[in-house]
Every structure is written in C-alpha cells, then in structure tokens.
C-alpha cells in the first residue's frame, strides 16, 4: 500500500473518492464498454493467467467488476435507482484491496482478452482505466509506485551508480560507437530502455551502430534518455503525462522529425498512442518503433542487410507493439531480409501469448511465482518450434525470459533482434 502510514478511515475515504472519480471521469466509450458486457466468461479463455491456473478470479472482465459496480452506482443512466434501492453497494476498501492482485500481479495488459470478446469490448483498455482508479485509491503496488514517482521526478525509475548519461557515454566508448547526446537540429531523437543501459549495453550500441549505418542525424537527449514509462505501469495518469512530456519536450527542443522507440513494448503504447492525448494535441513529430523505422529504411534501400547464417529462429512478438500496436510485419521483414528461417509458434503474430513480464509484472516481487507458472505456456510453445536462436523485440520480454532462464534452467537465451540486425549490416562497418 502506498503511504502505508495513513489509517484505515482515511484509506476508505481515499477509495471512495477514487471510485467516485473513476465513475465521474468516465467517458462515453468506456461507459459503453462497461454497459455491454453480458458475463459470458469467454475472455477467460484468452488469458494465459486463467489458462495456466484455471482459477476463475483471473477472468479479465472480473478485474473491472468493482469499477462496473462504481460506474452503475455513480454515473450510469439508472445510477439514482441503483443508489436508492441499494442494488449496487459502494465499493469498499477491503474489496478493492483484493483487486490489486488481479489488476497488477496477474495482468500484463497484453490485450489478448480484447480479441476474443464476442461483444467486441476492449477489456484491456478497461483494465488500464481500472489501474488509474487503483492508483488514485493508493493501491498501486509498491515497486511500481516508487519507480513511477522516482521517474516523474528525476527521469530515472531508480537511482543508479552513475547517471544514465555517463553510462551511455561509457557504452559508446566500450563499443567504439559514437552515441551523440544532446545534439540539436537532428532527424531522429533516440531513447533507450533503462534495462538495456543496465543489463544489455550491446543493444544500446547496436542502436547507435544502425543509426550510424543509416547516416541519418540522430541524438540522445540526457533529460529524456529512458523509454520506459512507469506512470503507465502504475496507473498514475499525471505521472505518465509528466514522463511522456520529458520525451516530447526534448524531441521538440532538438526539432526531431521522428522520435524512435527502441525495443520496448509499453513505451510504444505510451508514446505512439497515449502521449498525444495526454499532451492535449497532435505531436509535432512522428513516433516510430525501431523495427518499423528499419523496415521502412530497408524498403527505401537506405538499410542494407547481409545474410545472418544462424540457422532457424523463433521470435517473441511484444504484445504492446504487435497485438495492441499493429507492428506485426516489420520485424518479419527484417528477419526475412537477413535470411532467417523463422519458426512461428503455435499462437503467433497478434495471437501470441505474452512473455508474462509485461505490464510491470516483472517488477513486482510477490507476483513472481504466479508469473513463472504462467510463463510455462510460452516456454512450451517456444520449445515446440525447435527454432535455434530465440529472438525478442522488447527488453522487458528479454529481462523476463532471462529471469525464467535462471528459474527453469531453460536451455535458450533471449537475443535482441536489433543486435542481430546491427551484426548483419552490409558492409559491416565495425566489428561488434
């Protein structure tokens, strides 16, 4: 619980205020989604948490049940009737506390449930909104709350030994690749997942190398180095706006035409689809995922890729990029260009199962046992493809699979697609 110090009584008032806020803030679209559910229970059959555990509490639409209750009681057409006759009681703090496990620990915001609903409800969108209300009610998980607060204040989710700006320069020197920082008047502004800065520096170097290969002016901005958005994970709308604003302002400052989102799923959703609404108007620059941008460059001939003879591969489609973002073909175009033998999993492209780490779940300690149990579905599917190398398109996925590798002593190691692209640039500019 956030601010665990405040007593139960004000906790209840905070919950009541949050639920009223949720209900009163609701727009026509979300209200329509809450109105039209017919309790058919099919969304459970899409969710890997239910499939793995067969536990009915993980039914996706059940995650928004208290919010449906609040909406019906406070803002729906018959709200007065529901209140006077007590058909819909107010949501209590105890009740909402149990929903923290459902909305955070057991939901990757992967959006697979939205594809199965026979009524067409975007259940994932409802869950994102439910997280906002949980945040307002002070019920966001400790890890996500702390990182979101830290990031909105300092730009970094956590304090680091060296500021990321220094670490970035260090990576540049280590790999001998120029990583321009704080340049102005550039074509493309870059940012990187802080997971790559700390755990996978090669991916950062690969990004620099590829951009150098394309010969397009690009820069990092020290005030907006981090691609992740913990406000999005924690459900803190204001903090999500503040974090996104950093990137937007820096992109405007350096007059970038394109803000490139690195291999990070939720960063794409936060910047490409939600930032403009939080900003209030259309962004003066394009937001593109790195695979999208490179596929475009490949098509325009600016990117030249050689064959990478590493035999067969399997690829984890990041949910936020592929299922929710529509970036499905770009990575496949790149892989085809590199002559890779891609072995598709049983559930692939927009129907693939989530890595289990997304939506901030990989950061939540207490969610780990459930996460491992749910990942077995994904690991079985990857092994079933008997593809040689296992590629991912998102650093959270990579972090989650590395974690699983240690837990299950899994024989595969997740590799970054971008790093592979950097290695197969033709003619190779600098040995990696």
């Amino acid at each position, binding site marked *: 619980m956030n601010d665990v110090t405040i007593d139960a009584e004000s906790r209840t008032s905070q919950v009541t205020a949050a639920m009223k806020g949720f209900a009163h803030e*609701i*727009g*026509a*679209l979300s*209200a*329509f*989604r809450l*109105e*039209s559910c*017919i*309790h*058919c*229970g*099919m969304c*459970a*059959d*899409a969710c890997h948490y*239910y499939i793995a555990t*067969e536990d*009915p*509490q993980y*039914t996706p*639409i*059940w995650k928004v*049940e208290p919010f449906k209750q609040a909406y019906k009681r406070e*803002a*729906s*057409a*018959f709200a007065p009737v529901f209140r006077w006759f007590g058909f819909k009681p107010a949501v209590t703090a105890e009740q909402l506390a149990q929903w923290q496990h459902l909305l955070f620990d057991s939901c990757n915001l992967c*959006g697979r449930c*939205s*594809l*199965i*609903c*026979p*009524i*067409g*409800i*975007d259940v994932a969108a409802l869950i994102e909104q439910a997280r906002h209300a949980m945040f307002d009610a002070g019920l966001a998980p400790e890890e996500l709350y702390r990182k979101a607060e830290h990031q909105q204040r300092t730009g970094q989710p956590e304090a680091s030994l060296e500021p990321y700006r220094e670490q970035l320069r260090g990576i540049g020197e280590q790999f001998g690749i120029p990583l321009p920082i704080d340049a102005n008047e550039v074509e493309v502004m870059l940012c990187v997942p802080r997971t790559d800065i700390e755990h996978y520096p090669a991916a950062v170097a690969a990004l620099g190398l590829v951009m150098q290969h394309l010969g397009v002016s690009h820069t990092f901005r020290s005030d907006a180095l981090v691609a992740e958005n913990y406000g999005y994970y924690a459900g803190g709308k204001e903090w999500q706006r503040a974090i996104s604003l950093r990137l937007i302002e820096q992109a405007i400052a350096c007059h970038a035409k394109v803000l490139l989102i690195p291999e990070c799923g939720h960063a794409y959703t936060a910047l*490409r*689809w*939600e*930032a*403009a*609404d939080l*900003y*209030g*108007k*259309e*962004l003066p620059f*394009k*937001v593109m995922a790195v695979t999208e941008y490179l596929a475009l460059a490949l098509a325009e001939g600016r990117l030249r890729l050689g064959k990478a003879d590493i035999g067969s591969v399997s690829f984890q489609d990041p949910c936020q990029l592929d*299922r*929710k*973002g*529509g970036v*499905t073909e770009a990575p496949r175009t790149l892989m085809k260009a590199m002559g890779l033998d891609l072995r598709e999993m049983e*559930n692939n492209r*927009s*129907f693939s199962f989530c890595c289990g780490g997304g939506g901030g779940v990989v950061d939540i300690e207490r969610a780990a046992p459930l996460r491992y149990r749910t990942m077995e579905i994904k690991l079985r599917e990857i092994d079933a493809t008997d593809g040689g190398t296992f590629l991912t398109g998102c650093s959270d996925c990579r972090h989650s699979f590395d974690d699983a590798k240690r837990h299950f002593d899994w024989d595969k190691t997740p590799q970054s697609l971008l790093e592979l692209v950097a290695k197969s640039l033709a003619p190779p500019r600098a040995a990696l």
Partner: protein
Amino acid sequence: MSMDWLSFARGPALKVAIGVFFVGVVWRILGFALLRIRREHSRPRSGLLRYVSIGLFATATRSWPHPQFVKRTGAGEALGYSYHMGLFAVILLFGPHVAFLCGLLGIHPWPVLPSSVITGIAVVTATLFAGVLYRRLTSRVMRLLSNFDDYFTWFITMLVMCTGLATSAHLGARYETLLAIHILSVDALLIWFPFGKLMHAFYIMPSRALNGAILARKGAPT
C-alpha cells in the same frame, strides 16, 4: 366493467410494457452515449474510411471466435447462436406472432412456417436454452461472473418460451388463460429489457464496430 386477463395483457399491460421499453432503452443509451467523447490526438495508422470500414467488417468477423480461440469458445458460442436462431425463427415465422407484429407495425404479413414445425423448433430452442443455464451454473468462470441480472433475464426469457409452448399445446389451463400468461410474460420481458443484459441486442453491433474501428485505427487486429 370487468376486464379479463387476456384483454388486460393485450391492452393496457402491453401498452405500459412498450412504453417502459422505449423510455428505458433510450434513457439508458443516451445516459452513456452523451457522456464526453475524448478525441484521439495520436496519428492514425490508416485513413478514416479504411479503419471505419474495418470496424464495420469487425461486426461480422467478431461474431465467430478467431481460429486460435475456436477450440475453447466455439461450443459455447455455437450453443448461444443456435438458440438465438431458434428463438428468432419462432418469433418471426409463426402465424400468430406475425399477426401480432404486423398488426402493431401496420405492415403486410409475410409467409409463415407450419405451426407443427414451429412447435418442433420451439421445443429444441427451449432445451438449448436450458443448456445455456446449465453451462452458466457449471462453469466456474460464469458462476463467478453471474449476478441477479444474468439469472433473472434467463428466467424471464425461459418463461416466455415455456408459456408460449404451453399455449400452443393448450396444456394445463383454458386457452385464453395460457395466452394471457404468455403475453404477460412478454410484457414482463419488455419491461425488464432496458434494465438488464437484453440491452446487448442494441449494444452488440455498435460495440463491435466502434471497438473494431479504434483497434483498426492503430493497425491492430480486430
């Protein structure tokens, strides 16, 4: 001047029912539809015409589970659709029902199925509909989700089906009493309609189209 049950059911009760139906439906729909609609400022991945048409197309594609899901939810949806089709066949192709509808709407009646065929369809439909309740009671997911609305709406619809069957079979009471009970149960269904899940009849197509268009705007699958 005493009014027997049948005249009451066909007259004032039906008038009240239709009144409550229209008031309730419009009230509920406008109650949320007129709330604020947030414009999306992010750049769409394709033109308006394209993603709206994908959205409209989604009303068809989403009416059957995607191949990846059909193994798990195909049976459930098939059961649902089959009793819906049976119900609509009985409502729209049975002589007296057509007379009722065309009388109300003042349009020329259309050809109907033989009453014996309709009775057959009705019996199958009622059995399938009982199957739906069985599924809702035995599936742990559905039992968790189900509230008063789910069970009451099922009960009202089943009541309409059974009283209709009893009337056509002239079973259990005088014909006019059975017909009165059947029409009264239809009145009850019309009155309950706006307050329960039957509203999905109005919601399902716009919901698939709207959500489909929003997803298609991002180039995402529907």
